[in-house]
């Protein structure tokens, strides 16, 4: 694996790490299985691309607007759930499928190229470091900033109320926490992060595409679970690190699968190999426990 590929893998891993942090907020903190992300990721890409290409906006502002659009999408899902009592999973599916049409409208087509406009990555060229290095560093800084912001948020009174609303809604409600409001804000935030990731991914990919969202939910969730299994921890600080590590490991598994053709694997086996590598990583993680089981067996 070349340095270029390793940094490229990190780049993609950092971007999907943002998605994983969003998934962590919904699935782990709020206990809200949110499927909106499948639509809000391409929404972020579409909004950023359209603002940059058609409206000629500054890419930084366009990227932030993409995040805001994602917040609205997540807010709508939570609204369907909280206000209209639609099952959370269904609410997410409904918003995600409607976003597919909305994204086509926003981009007035399925694909919006970003190959001939300035992106946030263009601005990094002033540092005079080759793109493939500075992009990875930049995205690394972005995700660390988001991680610390999320940690800090969850440590505030508001954030603790949100955690309470997720872990024990009845108790939280009894203590005066507005659980519905927590869901609206939390799911909104999570989708804002996802859309932000979508906007960054589109700029790194070279285009926004209506089909960019395929599999986002699986990648986000797998990253959280892989991270949590490898680094089990009670603290938010370590848990958010675990999400990022999980996202990077997932991309690393894909990279390995891409390089595994020399042992007779075909290009179409990538998904299978990725899944197997994730499984192996999870089993290896338990190998400590395995060893102790064997030791106990020997003693007897």
């Amino acid at each position, binding site marked *: *694996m*070349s*340095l*270029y*590929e*390793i*940094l*490229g*893998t990190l*780049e*993609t891993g950092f*971007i*999907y790490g943002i998605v994983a942090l969003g998934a962590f907020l919904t699935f782990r903190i709020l206990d809200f299985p949110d499927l909106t992300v499948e639509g809000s990721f391409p929404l972020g890409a579409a909004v950023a691309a359209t603002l940059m290409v058609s409206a000629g906006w500054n890419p930084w502002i366009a990227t932030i607007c993409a995040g805001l659009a994602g917040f609205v999408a997540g807010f709508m899902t939570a609204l369907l759930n909280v206000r209209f009592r639609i099952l959370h999973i269904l609410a997410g599916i409904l918003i995600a499928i409607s976003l597919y049409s909305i994204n086509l*409208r926003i981009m*007035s*087509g*399925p*694909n919006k*190229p*970003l*190959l*001939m406009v300035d992106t946030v990555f263009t601005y990094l060229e002033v540092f005079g470091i080759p793109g*493939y290095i500075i992009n990875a560093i930049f995205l690394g800084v972005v995700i660390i900033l988001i991680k610390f912001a999320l940690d800090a948020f969850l440590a505030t009174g508001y954030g603790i109320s949100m955690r309470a609303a997720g872990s024990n809604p009845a108790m939280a409600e009894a203590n005066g926490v507005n659980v519905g409001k927590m869901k609206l804000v939390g799911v909104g935030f999570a989708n804002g992060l996802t859309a932000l990731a979508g906007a960054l*991914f589109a700029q*790194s*990919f*070279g*285009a926004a*595409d209506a*089909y*960019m969202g*395929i*599999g986002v939910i699986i*990648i986000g969730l797998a990253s959280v679970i892989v991270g949590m299994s*490898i*680094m089990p921890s009670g603290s938010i600080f370590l848990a958010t690190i675990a999400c990022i*590590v999980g996202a990077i*490991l997932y*991309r*690393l598994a*894909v*990279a*390995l699968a*891409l*390089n*595994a*053709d*020399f042992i007779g694997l075909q*290009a*179409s086996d*990538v*998904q299978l190999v990725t899944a197997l590598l994730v499984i192996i*990583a999870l089993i*290896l*993680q338990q190998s400590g426990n395995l060893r102790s089981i064997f030791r106990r067996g020997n003693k007897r």
Partner: protein
Amino acid sequence: MTVLLRSAVAAIVLGVAATSAYADDMKKVAISTIVEVPALTDTKQGIIDALAARGYVDGETITIDYQNANGNMPTQQQIAKKFVGDNPDIIMPITTPTSQAMISATSDIPIVFSTVTDPIKAQLISQYEKPGGNVTGVSDAAPIEPQLDLFKEIVPGLKKIGFIYNPGLDNAVATLGWVKEFGAPRGIEVVESPAPTTNEVVLATKKLIGEVDAIYIPNDTTIVAALEAIVKVGQDVDLPIFTGETGGVERGAIASVGLDYVGIGEIAGNMAADVLEGKPVGEIDAVIAYKTLDKFKVVINKGAAERMGVMIPDSVMAQATQVIE
């Protein structure tokens, strides 16, 4: 954390092994596509065939690295990074997003794209003739001209053609422009009949009765969803119905002309061979496949023609690659 370390080491070891699998003296060709569907695997086959015909045989004179993203954009992105890191002699992306990812990843390594409908709109190139930079390739734009020629052969008095479409769809609007552009020199005038939803398709069809000599149904999902209803109207009033896609012929349209994707791959493969022989990629003209291809998929539905009161001339039957009775 030791697990992390272990997997990282494993990653690097595997990666190095993979990279060294390339023989150093052989030229390297990297091919990728977003997903494996017949049109795309045919394109890939055409590329490999054409390269072999020019003496570039995989495993003998060149090494071909083929990667498929399994429909996954981040995986596509990683493939782009892997290719650039491997530094092949040429990168051959198939489909629009694959090409965009590759072009975004490198402006040095020669890129020959294929099966991209509108490479200018996708910003892969800025012009077809000597596109410059590191990119050229083959467009699979719909073969409107051969289609109109065929329709005119089947309906010799074709002066006005009805065009039913969803004005909200990009590709339908683009196709409308092409049918107008290529119809004009053939003496064919286009009569538009928009139908923004599938429910309005029958009405949009009936509006055309008496106004046109035939109807063209573009590859527009809104309209194609109601193709059977359109075909029924056509049968009731003996109005010939043609489709922009050969799949529609099986569902009751009279005829269509489709692209041979192996042929598209062959054009791209020959461009790649030129690049391997030292020709600067930016000086190779990008092409629209149907303008250079001489063989097409011509599908005729004889039964449908009879039911719409049309006799298929023998000259047309002779061109058919597939006849549905």
